[in-house]
């Protein structure tokens, strides 16, 4: 496991508390030089000593868990792998010092890098548009024709001696016509670009939402509290049944109807349709999906204000698109909280050891809903296993990503083809498990499973996905799926990487592109 520099947090907290190193050493019962080593990240603190430091300096334990620093290191590793920096011979130990001593500058570097990436993708998108956009192609064609006529006629007027007065008048009129036409084309082009103007942000909307969820550790106590009130108001101590959920909606004036697929409106999304007064569900929709859709409408009615308040506290969601995406994510979060109440769900994860099939039966939930809920079990004092969650589509593209600080995940496209999320696609319904070792020595336990598409009819199929959960190998024994595996630090693990570009395993048979880290 890579050591993470958190000494600067201790040093800053000590200074803020007005304590000397000597005083802290005395309170901890260690030598002054040992405190000095800790503050300069030359000794890692864990366990009781870490707890003592947080108590003495009144630091939130989360500030010392190293998650922010670990993520920053991962991001800086990605920065340093950029081919544009090849040849600078960047010294990795200096990166640790940068994070330890000048963390804001490290964040600035990452922010600039992301802004550069964003600009590159915008340039690529614009270039693609210039080459293929039908409106632009048509405009350019017209412009070239108009300028051809103007150029040719001007040459005639300037260079032809034998031109009659009548012809001269005609050519003058052509010039006028084409000049007017050219002006019209220029105006429509200006309008086209104005319509397509986008505000410049360093991150795409999905990335902003990823950041938002990561910063909040995908745990929203205010939403949990509100949902708990709603659940109690349903007058069910146990899990809300589907009839109880429907009844709740109907009390609020929303009817729920199940219809044959062919009778759903053409615009129905994911085999459901909601017009504000009626929720239409395709007959045969999986129960878990049906319950989730109903729950989502309930939280839409009863928790919108609390979700809006969360969004108000998220200034980094800069675009309307990002805010709308975040809103949808929080409504889905709230629906999951309603169907899988925190305390009951947390207890069940411990009892079943995260057995997805057992939990799916107990909570009438789908594997994807369960995986999402696992990542939100972050309440202090009742924290579940910290998981990374991924969802990949049939093309291998990562369509959902919730990272762990030490588990690098590609920002764009696909990941290392050796991750179990891809192997799972070849064996739908069978769960894959993998003890994976990354090039830096970090080990993760991974489980993955592909879901089959839900056939709603020709052209109306809900796509299948491959889902992956990953946790630190140290937590693997808390999962039923690790049973029978040798999890010791010397056990054989499958060597994987983050992406080909970032992976130094030069001779990997799965390599698709050269490594930027190869020397």
């Amino acid at each position: 496991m890579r050591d993470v520099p958190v000494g600067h947090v201790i040093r800053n907290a000590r200074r803020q508390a007005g304590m000397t190193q000597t005083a802290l050493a005395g309170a901890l019962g260690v030598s002054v030089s040992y405190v000095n080593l800790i503050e300069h990240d030359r000794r890692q603190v864990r366990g009781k000593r870490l707890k003592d430091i947080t108590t003495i300096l009144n630091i939130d334990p989360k500030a010392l868990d190293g998650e922010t620093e670990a993520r920053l290191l991962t991001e800086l590793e990605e920065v340093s792998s950029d081919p544009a920096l090849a040849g600078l011979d960047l010294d990795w130990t200096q990166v640790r010092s940068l994070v330890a001593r000048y963390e804001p500058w490290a964040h600035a570097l990452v922010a600039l890098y992301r802004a550069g990436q964003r600009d590159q993708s915008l340039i690529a998108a614009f270039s693609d548009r210039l080459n293929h956009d039908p409106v632009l192609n048509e405009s350019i064609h017209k412009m070239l024709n108009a300028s051809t006529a103007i150029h040719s006629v001007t040459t005639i007027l300037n260079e032809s001696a034998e031109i009659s007065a009548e012809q001269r008048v005609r050519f003058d009129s052509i010039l006028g016509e084409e000049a007017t036409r050219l002006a019209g084309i220029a105006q429509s082009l200006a309008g086209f670009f104005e319509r397509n103007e986008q505000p410049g942000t360093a991150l795409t909307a999905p990335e902003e939402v990823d950041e938002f969820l990561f910063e909040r550790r995908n745990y929203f106590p205010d939403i949990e509290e509100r949902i708990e009130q709603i659940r109690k108001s349903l007058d069910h101590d146990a899990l809300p049944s589907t009839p109880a959920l429907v009844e709740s909606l109907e009390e609020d004036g929303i009817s729920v109807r199940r219809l044959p697929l062919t009778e759903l409106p053409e615009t129905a999304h994911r085999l459901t349709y909601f017009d504000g007064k009626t929720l239409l569900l395709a007959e045969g929709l999986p129960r878990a999906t049906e319950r989730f859709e109903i729950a989502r409408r309930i939280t839409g009615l009863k928790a919108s204000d609390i979700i809006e308040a969360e969004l108000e506290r998220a200034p980094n969601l800069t675009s309307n698109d990002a805010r709308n995406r975040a809103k949808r994510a929080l409504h889905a979060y709230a629906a999951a909280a309603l169907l899988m109440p925190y305390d009951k769900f947390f207890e069940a994860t411990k009892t079943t050891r995260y057995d997805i099939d057992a939990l799916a039966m107990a909570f009438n939930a789908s594997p994807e809903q369960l995986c999402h809920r696992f990542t939100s079990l972050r309440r202090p004092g009742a924290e579940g296993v910290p998981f990374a969650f991924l969802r990949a589509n049939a093309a291998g593209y990562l369509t959902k990503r919730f990272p762990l600080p030490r588990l690098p995940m590609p920002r764009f496209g696909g990941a290392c083809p050796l991750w179990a999320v891809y192997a799972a696609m070849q064996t739908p319904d069978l769960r894959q498990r993998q003890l994976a070792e990354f090039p830096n020595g970090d080990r993760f336990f991974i489980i993955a499973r592909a879901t089959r598409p839900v056939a709603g009819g020709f052209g109306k199929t809900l796509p299948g996905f491959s889902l992956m959960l990953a946790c630190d190998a140290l937590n693997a024994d808390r999962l039923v799926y690790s049973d029978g595996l040798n999890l010791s630090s010397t056990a054989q693990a499958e060597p994987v990487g983050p992406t080909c570009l970032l992976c130094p395993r030069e001779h990997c048979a799965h390599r698709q592109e050269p490594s930027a880290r190869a020397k």
Partner: protein
Amino acid sequence: MKANVLIAEDEQNIAESLRFILEQAECNVRHATDGEAALREARLSVPDVLILDVMLPSLNGFDVLKTLRADDALKDVAVMVLTAKGQSQDRQTADALGADVFVTKPFSNAHIVSEVLRLAALRSGVSG
């Protein structure tokens, strides 16, 4: 002997300027505004040179060229392909279909005239 030129161009103003400069160069000029009309005109009286715009209504320039080259009576017509796009793909297609000259818009009047006269002279050499 005057060169017979057929212009297949749907842009009226470009066609007019082409007709003017070619008539100044002592060519006999006819004009068709779409692909089917161009083939009709060519069959009516076989031209020495066809100036063929790519983006034509009804039948585009490449279809006209393909038909021309497959027709024994028309296969020897010298063809100058005109395009407003000028992309390498268009040039490759024109070459593959047997165009003699490829010109991108905006063009130079002098270049058009000299190329048309050159093609016509070559053709009269072939036929004569």
